[in-house]
């Protein structure tokens, strides 16, 4: 059947028949449960279909770029950094108009002596509103179970070798707090403007499985 699905690369010929590429896999138990719950909440007027769509859109707008702006500001503004470490949510809200939409954000700082890494062993708690949706590995049983038990081994698999003399501090995000790792500013980036610094602050550096690198 001829079609113009965006999945096709430019130049892909359409003069043959094949099944359309569809995202209509059979629904499992939990998909049915989620769909039924959503329908009931909308029917009862708890929220509208439009509210739900708008919230999904809002979540999708969030990405690691939000967290990167916070880190870049902390690298360039020592007073802000200190307030951020003491009161994460309050500081990012009041001083950057960034609402993490959670009870609080615990900001943990990497130093020459300490490296922090975040995991949620019970499920996959993640600061979605400052880092976007979590990567699949963050939700895997392997990452969740091994990071608490062998953090240095897990970090090595991410290509992050932590000096044996440096303390590794794991944070198990088991309840109401969410976490942001404040990576160390790489050497050679002193004096860079915030906008340029933000580019080198990646998602993985803010979860703590990587260290920030000066680009190029």
């Amino acid at each position: 059947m001829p079609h113009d699905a965006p999945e096709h690369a430019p130049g892909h010929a359409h003069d043959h028949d094949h099944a359309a590429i569809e995202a209509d896999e059979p629904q499992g138990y939990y998909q049915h449960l989620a769909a039924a719950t959503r329908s009931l909440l909308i029917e009862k007027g708890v929220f509208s279909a439009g509210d739900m769509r708008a919230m999904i859109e809002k979540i999708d707008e969030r990405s690691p770029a939000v967290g990167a702006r916070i880190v870049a500001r902390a690298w360039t503004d020592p007073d802000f950094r200190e307030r951020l470490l003491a009161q994460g949510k309050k500081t990012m809200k009041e001083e950057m108009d960034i609402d993490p939409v959670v009870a609080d954000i615990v900001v943990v700082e990497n130093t020459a002596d300490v490296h922090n890494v975040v995991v949620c062993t019970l499920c996959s708690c993640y600061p979605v509103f400052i880092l976007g949706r979590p990567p699949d590995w963050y939700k895997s049983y392997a990452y969740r179970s091994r990071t608490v038990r062998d953090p240095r081994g897990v970090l090595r698999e991410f290509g992050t070798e932590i000096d044996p003399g440096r303390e590794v501090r794991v944070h198990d995000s088991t309840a109401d707090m969410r976490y942001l790792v404040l990576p160390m500013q790489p050497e050679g980036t002193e004096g860079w403007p915030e906008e340029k610094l933000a580019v080198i602050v990646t998602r993985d550096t803010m979860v703590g499985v990587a260290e920030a690198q000066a680009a190029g």
Partner: protein
Amino acid sequence: MSAPPFRPRFGPGDAVTVSARFPTGRRHLRTPFYIRGKTGAVERVCGAYRNPEELAFGTYDGARLPLYRVRFDQAHVWDDYAGNPADTIDIEIYETWLEPAAAGDDSNAA
């Protein structure tokens, strides 16, 4: 009606032991198995939060519980821990799961 005053039982630096309870049946617990029975030190008091063990079953008006971040030495948590003896793990734990550590407990998390 105003909320009752917030009076956390523990403060930063207090040595605490996680209850070694293993409830069965209908439950939703936010205290990981691997930390039950272990001793650490309160890193900070996070505030008062609803009890997830009630929330999970639709009770939204229960008492709010003090929530703590507790720091444990990895070498105390895992018998065969191979990393730096200074390595630690911080875990959020609700007050109902914490007891004052017995004197002479072998953990020295700070």
